[in-house]
Each structure stands twice: as C-alpha cells, then as structure tokens.
C-alpha cells in the first residue's frame, strides 16, 4: 500500500522518537509513504488555530487534502489530534458545496482544487481497515503475551463520532484494543481511556492538566497495567512528560510508561527498544521490556 503521509508537527518535534519508529514499522508492513509535509503541507491547526480562524484552518486542511488527491493516494496520519481536526474540516467541506467552493477559490492561486474525495485516516485505522488483524498477527515476532496494556485514545480520535464516521466504521470505536490484542498483549480496560489527557490546558491551568495525568495514570496502575499505549503524541507529551509533576501533586508513586502505538507495534515486530526510541521517554519503559523479556 502507498500512502500520502502526514506525520504532523509533534512527531518530529516534542516526540522525536515517534517519527523514526513509525517509518520502521510502516516499512515492515510494506507501506510506502509519500510525505506531504515535505511537499509543503501545513499544520492542521490542532483545534487551536480554529478557535481564532476556523476558515483559515479549513483552507490549510483542504490544501493538504488536495495534495493527497493530486497524488492519488489515501491520506494517513499518526496523531489523534491531526485525525480529529482533519475529519472535522473534511465534514464541513463535504457537507457544504458553497463553502468548499469558497475554500477552493483560495487554493486556486496554487493551482490546487479539493474535490472532496480525501479520507484522512490514522495509522491505527489503516491497520484495522487496510491490513486486518489476521494479517497483522503474521508480522508479530515477539508476542507481547505477558504485557498488560491500558489503551488511551486521545479525544479527537473518538469524538465527535459523526465527523469520525463511527457509524460507517464501527470497529474504529475499539480499534486500539483490537490492535493490542493482535499483538498478543493483555488489554486492561479502564474508564479513562477516552477521556482528556489535559494537554490542551497545560499552559492555561496546569494544576487541572496535571490532575488529569495523575488520574488516568493512577487508574491504569491500580488496574494492574504495565504500560499505557496511545495513538496521540500530544497525550504522550502530557502523560509522560508531566508524570513526575503528577506524582508530586498526587503524592503517588505512579511510574507508568507511556508507549506510542508505533513503538508497541515495533516491539512486537522484533525491533529493538533503541530502534523504537524508548530511551527518550521521561518515564522509563524498562518495566515493559522486562515483561516481554527484551533487554533494555
């Protein structure tokens, strides 16, 4: 499969371990990636730009969609926030032909036109919809049999469900659990899996943001999870980077490793922890490695 690949800003910024881990895993899966940001595609706006100028955000995303259309490739991303913002923009553009025409009026200066055919999808969804769980199992060299993993989705890949087309694709709702099970891991279900990690209010109300980190990581720990896995690099930034503060604030010894989805895939595919960039995490992932008997 070949994809128009949208890595997003954070996979090469605050989470520099995510981008190379994704490339290795995608290569192993036989995915060929044509990277859109190397062609000039912009940030999605992450919902923040949209607070101030939703139309400009939609123009940016329509431009990215038009680039993917021009390449004739399905559009894949690796960030729950990118997924949600793209899906919401796409819904507005597809639902209203006049709005789309207005947006295209601006894209015309670059010779671009969005025809409304793009379907932005997270790597997580492409695993379910393009690869399939039976095929995914054939890539597993190191089953994660002893590992108890709690899923943590990130808001924008689970809400709003109409823009994310959950009715058309009901398996998206528990996609993370399906993938984790296919890799051999034990799924630890917990109520916080679809809640907010607190990242969006980190610079506005740090106390509340860190409380969310403490709540979710503690809940996962109390339910016996060895690690949490997330398809969202922004959730990773908060749950991993602010966990020391969360431990301080909650007076709990949490130490819950937060694993990016591609890293979990990579470990199961037999990549080394170093190849997956696990040493870059703030909370050590050694516990994960000892559970699957991989040397750190």
């Amino acid at each position: 499969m070949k994809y128009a690949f949208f890595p997003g800003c954070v996979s090469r910024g605050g989470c520099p371990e995510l981008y190379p881990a994704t490339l290795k895993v995608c290569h192993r899966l036989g995915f060929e990636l044509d990277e859109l940001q190397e062609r000039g595609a912009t940030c999605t706006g992450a919902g923040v730009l949209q607070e101030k100028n939703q139309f400009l955000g939609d123009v940016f995303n329509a431009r990215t969609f038009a680039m993917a259309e021009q390449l004739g490739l399905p559009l894949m991303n690796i960030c729950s926030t990118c997924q949600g913002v793209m899906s919401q923009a796409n819904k507005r553009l597809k639902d209203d032909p006049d709005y789309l025409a207005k947006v295209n009026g601006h894209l015309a200066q670059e010779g671009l036109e969005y025809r409304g055919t793009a379907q932005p999808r997270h790597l997580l969804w492409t695993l379910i919809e393009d690869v399939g769980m039976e095929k995914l199992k054939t890539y597993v060299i190191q089953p994660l049999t002893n590992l108890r993993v709690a899923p943590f989705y990130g808001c924008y890949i689970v809400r709003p469900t109409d823009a994310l087309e959950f009715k058309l694709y009901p398996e998206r709702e528990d996609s993370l659990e399906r993938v984790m099970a296919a890799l051999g891991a034990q799924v630890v279900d917990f109520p916080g899996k679809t809640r907010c990690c607190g990242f969006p209010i980190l610079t506005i109300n740090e106390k509340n943001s860190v409380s969310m980190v403490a709540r979710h990581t503690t809940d996962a720990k109390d339910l016996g999870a060895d690690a949490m896995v997330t398809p969202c690099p922004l959730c990773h930034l908060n749950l991993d980077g602010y966990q020391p503060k969360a431990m301080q604030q909650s007076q709990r010894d949490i130490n819950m490793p937060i694993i990016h989805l591609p890293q979990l895939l990579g470990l199961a595919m037999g990549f080394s922890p170093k190849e997956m960039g696990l040493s870059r995490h703030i909370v050590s992932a050694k516990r994960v490695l000892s559970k699957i008997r991989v040397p750190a």
Partner: protein
Amino acid sequence: MQVVVSVRRYNPEDRGTPSYWQEYGLEVEENASVLDSLIKIREEVDGSLALRCSCRSAICGSCAMRINGHAKLACNTKLSDVAGEDGKVTVEPAGVMPVVKDLVVDQTMFWDKVRQVSPWLQPEGPEPEAEYLAPNSDMTHLAGVMACIMCGACVSDCTVLEMDENFIGPAALAKAYRFAADPRDAEDRSRLATLSEYSGIWDCTRCFECVEVCPKGVAPMDRIMSLRDRAMERGYDKTYGARHTDAFEESVTHSGRLDELRLPIKTFGFFNLPALMNMAPVGLRALLRGKMPPIFHRSVPGVKKVRQLVKSVKAQQRGE
C-alpha cells in the same frame, strides 16, 4: 425483548454502605426506552429505586443519567440501541454532581453555575413600548443554543469539572454565549471580561464530550470556542489562553508548522520568569532524554505559498 438492566444503587440512609450494582432481568417491548425499563422496575419489581423523570419526551431534561458510561436522557434512549448482545445495559447517576439516592443527583451546583453567568437579557437605553426587537438574521445562530433543556448531560461528562468544581462548565458557558451573542444585550463586554478569567472559557480542554452527549445539539464546546473568539476580538487577549492561541496562529501562518519550543515562551512572555522557571524541570528532563523540538525551527518547503494563502484569506475576511 429480554434485557438485564444493571443499576448503580446508593442509599444514604444505609450509612457506611458504598454504592453497588444491582441487576434486574426484564421483559420489555421492542421499542422500550431505558426510562420505560426503570419505571417498570420501580413500579413492578423494586419500589425502592429512586429516579427523576417527568415528560418522557426529551423536553423537561429531568432524566439525564449515565447509560453504558455516557450521559444520555433515559427517555429518548432506546434499549435496543444500547443493550449488548447479552441484553445488558448499565445505568448510573449523572457524573460530577453529588448523588442524593440511586439515580437522583443534587443539581445545586449546576444551577449555581448557570446563575453565575447572569442568564438574562441586559439591554441598555429606554425600555421600548413593546418587545425588544432583533432581525431574524441576527438571531438564527442562537437557535441551537436556545434549544438547551438544562438536563445537565454536558456537566455530567465534562472532563474539566470532573477535576475542578470551580470551572464554570459547558451548560453555563453555552447559556453565557446565548446572551453575549444576542444583539440586544448591552453587557457583552463585561460578560466576556468575566468569562475570560480563571475557571472560565479558557479552562475548557476542547475534548468534545459535551458536544457528543448533548441530546439537543447545543454543542456547548462550539459556543465556548465562539466566546473565546469574541473575547479576543473585544480585546481580552492578555490571558494565557488568548496568548497561546495568538502564538499558535503566528507560528503556523508564518512557517506552516508549529514551533513547539517558542510556543510556551510566547504564551507566558519572555520576561515571565516564575512561569518559565516552573517549566524548567520539565524542559531539563526532556533535554537530558533528547526529547526536544529542534532549536532552529524549520519552515515547510515552499512556505511563501503558505504566507500568500494566509494573506489572501485574511484580505477576504477583512472584506478587501
């Protein structure tokens, strides 16, 4: 159809007894609602079950509760839509608010927050002889928010209120928008000034829970985003939230991608030493692990085209 309704029970008179799950096996009509099953339990099986309901038509907003973990109106939720393959459905009281008994919660906090935003029209000038008039075109965007039935579903599932009861919350903020955006209201500036303070519009995480659970399509989060936009337009742009949005826009429109390193610095201010020092341990830990964005921010290739695009969009928005 056969269903098993698992209800979260709690009776304050049983001192020291925590809440517990109780299952009721029932035979119900194919089109029965969750509320139908609860009333059947109360009237035919267990008269001690406490619940609040009235209109049974999704108008009064009395029967908001958590069904399978998410806030819904019990009266307009069909059992056949929510019961699993084993016929099981879970019913709990609404979240955030304290439980009085079983499925009844104390809504005092909900109403206090609504009152906090002065939910009435505050026009200026002499009182007109008849109604305060407004053109239809200025009012249609308020139709959605006026559909609110004050059921509290959004408050129940708000991810911020779950952590901090001081947050004004989605229902009250949607109500605040209803008046701040009303062309007849003269207090929009003071409303926006108050709402821009701590625990107001900028404390929302944009998690979409309230949009997802609202049974009336009010989309409280969208109203909160509109309030943010209006607040910035009116000059209330010195809060961390507004500064964060400004810095984000500047970064993305200038380079096509987010400059993560400079975003917090611009949000807090270059000379805001306490805030920057607070971030220092997190930054240092990340630096030691090699988990830092590039120091030299790189624009997307062909960034001039992006800047030209931004220019043309903004010119159109200014009406040029």
